[in-house]
């Protein structure tokens, strides 16, 4: 069984990986230093269990777990933490498995032998109880069983399309596109600081606005940096776009 250990502290990783190998010679520890690496490793080696530290730079454990549970066949996740007042409460109320550092070998053994799968609801509610770590730095899409992460800062716009949402983002200097399952409404609420709704089906990054063009037929198109085609601005959202462009 492959066990992924995600922790930003080298000594903490080292100890856990020793403990894991001691518990069972068939357990193979795999290491990651933050949430981003953890997801890369999950894509690559497909571990059965992830021991996930909550506080990590780059992407914290709670967010990484949120991306992971969206997979069709997600690994079991056990959180580890040294001391988190709020998180501990959240663990208790959501019956999520967690280990307190320094972790006891017996406790780890027990957790590994009967770890259940986390679900989305548990995580969401943990997030509500942990404002400090409950923000997303990335959105994730699942492509052929692996997770594709897109940093929020690289995203230009979200476009609603029937059932899905298409995300346009910049990748190595060119605009790329991927599809996620979400609603524009919840994305709009979550990223209200950086994104603006311009149409029933479009949410765009505020600092990428280049120009607002009036078409011959009276419609307004908004031009975003680096993107060829303009996006339609609805009458209802026109004033907020103008207000933003003036400021």
């Amino acid at each position, binding site marked *: 069984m492959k066990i992924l250990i995600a922790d930003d*502290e080298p*000594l903490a990783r080292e*100890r856990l990986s020793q403990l894991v190998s001691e518990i069972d010679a068939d357990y193979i520890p795999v290491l990651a*230093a933050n949430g981003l690496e953890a997801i890369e490793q999950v894509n690559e080696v497909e571990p059965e269990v992830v021991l996930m530290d909550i506080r990590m*730079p780059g992407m914290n454990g709670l967010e990484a777990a949120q991306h992971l549970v969206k997979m069709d066949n997600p690994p079991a996740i056990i959180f580890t933490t040294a001391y988190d007042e709020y998180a501990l409460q959240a663990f208790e109320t959501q019956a999520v498995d967690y280990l307190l550092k320094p972790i006891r070998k017996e406790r780890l053994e027990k957790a590994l032998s009967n770890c259940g799968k986390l679900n989305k609801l548990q995580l969401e509610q943990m997030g509500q109880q942990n404002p400090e770590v409950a923000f997303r730095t990335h959105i994730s899409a699942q492509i052929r069983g692996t997770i594709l992460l897109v940093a929020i800062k690289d995203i230009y716009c979200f476009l609603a399309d029937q059932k899905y949402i298409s995300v346009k983002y910049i990748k190595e200097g060119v605009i790329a596109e991927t599809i996620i399952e979400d609603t524009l409404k919840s994305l709009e609420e979550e990223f209200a600081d950086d994104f603006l709704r311009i149409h029933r089906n479009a949410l765009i990054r505020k600092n990428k606005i280049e120009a607002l063009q009036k078409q011959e037929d009276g419609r307004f198109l908004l031009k975003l940096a680096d993107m060829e085609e303009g996006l339609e601005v609805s009458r209802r959202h026109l004033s907020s776009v103008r207000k933003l462009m003036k400021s």
Partner: protein
Amino acid sequence: MVFAVVIIGQLLAFVLTLAPLSLDQQRWNDLALISLFIQWNGLLCSSVLCLLRPTLKKYSNQFAAASSYLTLLLVLTLCSELSFYIMEYYQMTEIITAASHWEFLLHNLLIGGIISALALRYFYIQYQWRVKMQAETCTKLQLLQARIRPHFLFNSMNTIASLTRTNPEVAERITEDLAELFRTLFRDDQQMIPWASELQLSERYIDIEKQRLGERLEIIWQIDAIPVDAMVPSLLLQPLLENAIFHGIEPEINGGTIKVIGAMNNNQLTITLQNTNSKNLVHRQGNKMALANIRERLSSHFPGNAAIECREQDDVYYVKLTLPYISQQIDEER
């Protein structure tokens, strides 16, 4: 509280009985009657106030006190009226003939008004004392947390647990460092120590954190300008380093550098701490307690002569400490 009401009521009954100079058989009979009246009143008042508690809770203390007082007087009036009619009905004339109806009521209201005012005051003071006690315990705990984050303690324990297997010698050293640090933390912080000691303590702290964060933590000391015998409040530097690590190093994948620069001009010491301020810190809840605590201690040791300033410029966070140079020798002579 009800017990206190009963005791106060009974004492009042005794006082009223003993007040006239003559003590004949009749007085002791009166005591029984007076006690009955007072206890009846006291308990009735207490229950009415208990019933009103949920309502009064919503208002300010002043309003609650005033309305409780008026309620007490109202209950007292009703009781007096009721007892007057009862006594009239049973023709217990020896008591009521002495006074007219209105005199009886006025008498009761005046005595009751004074005593219930005193009783309310007594309960108010008791309440204030309890609130103060709670607040004090709370601040003490917060003070300790301002000096050290619980996170640090448990992370260090974890580091030691790991080192015990791989590198027992370093584990031993870190344990000693940790003990030293906590000894200082638990000590009364009202004292001054030489800069050399504060520096040593800070270096021990950094030693612990370096084990934990590895290459992500880099620190540059440029502090030769500060005389080793300069007296500084204990735990002046360590909390600032802790803040720098918490806000500048931990949230960054590649860590960062902390720079400590010391200078001395005209007997004035300046110590500046610099750290790259993580952009990921927006959501990290800060701990303003540490800064407030240092500011307070600086001003109590060097009134009007020391300062702590913070500013942020181009993603670098600066904390600047300014304090007068007082050598160990001068400090001892003072």
